[in-house]
């Protein structure tokens, strides 16, 4: 799983039936310290609770489908949970 920030929503006009009940969100992948890294991607939101500005963690490929309900759906990436806090240990704590 990797971190990401929701940067927008996607409203499809026509969509395969399997995905019609799932919210689709634009997600900018993040480094572990919260900096944008790589190109934004569209994630299906398995939690149905994420919105723009929210930090989330997401999975890709088959795990993405498994994060959704129903799970046998054609997706690349899906949100598994919302992040309250990423606690990174200080260099002193890591010694």
């Amino acid at each position, binding site marked *: 799983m990797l971190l990401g920030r929701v940067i927008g929503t996607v409203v499809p006009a026509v969509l395969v039936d399997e995905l019609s009940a799932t919210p689709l969100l634009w997600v900018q992948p993040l480094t*572990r310290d919260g900096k944008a890294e790589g190109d934004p991607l569209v994630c299906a939101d398995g939690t149905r609770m994420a919105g723009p500005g929210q930090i989330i963690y997401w999975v890709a490929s088959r795990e993405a489908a498994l994060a959704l309900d129903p799970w046998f759906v054609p997706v690349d990436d899906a949100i598994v949970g919302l992040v309250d806090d990423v*606690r990174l240990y200080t260099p002193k704590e890591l010694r």
Partner: protein
Amino acid sequence: MILGRIVGNVVSTIHHSIVEGRKLLVAERLDSNGCPTGGYVIAFDAIGAGQGETVLILDEGNGARQILDDANAPVRSIVVGIVDAVELESS
């Protein structure tokens, strides 16, 4: 499997049910010399790994689901070992 070092954890209250009661660890990826590659992964914990420890991370979905004993878990990365030392043949 990949080598990593536990550098943090993720706090999450709204999540998929598989995350309930489990610890999410932030692990930086290490190369064969033990140096950070710059990449990271958020992994589940199967063994009780702690901060700063060098760990072995299974980065494959079917193996991870087998360890969690849940055929539908949306999980790919899971910490499966704590590493004492990595020995490399000197070239």
